[in-house]
């Protein structure tokens, strides 16, 4: 029995990138940094992302990480290192900012 073609099972960066961007815009558009609301926002952004990713119906495990930081002039570095299969797995990072906060969302997709 032949396996499914590899195009279907590869991580498509552009597709996922646009999904992430849409999700962040949807939730954070009208947001001014408010400490009490941040947990809600992080959850919302991630849930929205996840729902759209599952609609792609691909045989992937997903990890979505969202970091929201208040804009006070401090620096932040984010690094990631992955031990996976280069041909089928991939990641996408999207940065978003407005006057009061930064939002960084990373999606890792690993083929099953």
């Amino acid at each position: 029995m032949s396996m499914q073609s590899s195009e279907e099972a590869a991580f498509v960066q552009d597709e996922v990138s646009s999904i992430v961007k849409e999700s962040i815009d949807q939730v954070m558009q009208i947001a001014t940094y408010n400490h009490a609301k941040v947990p809600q926002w992080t959850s919302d952004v991630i849930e929205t992302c996840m729902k759209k990713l599952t609609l792609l119906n691909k045989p992937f495990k997903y990890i979505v990480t969202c970091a929201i930081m208040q804009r006070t002039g401090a620096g932040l570095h984010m690094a990631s290192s992955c031990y996976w299969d280069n041909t089928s797995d991939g990641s996408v990072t999207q940065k978003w900012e407005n006057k009061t906060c930064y939002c960084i969302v990373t999606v890792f997709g690993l083929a099953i």
Partner: protein
Amino acid sequence: MDFTAQEPVKVYENTYQMGPRDDQKVSIPRVEEVIKRVLNEKMEMTLEKDPTKRDKHLWIYDHEEVGEMSREACEAIQQGVKELGYTKYKLIVQVQMGENNGQALRTASRCLWAPESDVSVSGSFVKGRMFAVATVFCLYHE
């Protein structure tokens, strides 16, 4: 006749294994230990205090240096977890390092995976002028 060497086609037999066996499962405390050890090592130099002024840290936040530090920490954690010997797992290590400036940072993550076999472990380090958060995701793969 054509004698050019060709790699024999590898055929993998079924193991009929659906998930990790008990001895193959990731041990969360061990991974936590690796994270703590690496973060402590990397961050040690940021804690150097000025001997002449009380409570004043010598080390000043430098953007490129911290970038380098976070990449090194990532590699070191990945190496450490690989050495623990979980052969059937794919690893993702994420490190966030920044300046402690009185700002708030919130990180959340959600995962769509198999909860019986996949784990995530995280550790943090907040001291002096720096903070560092490291998360390791281990996903079972046949």
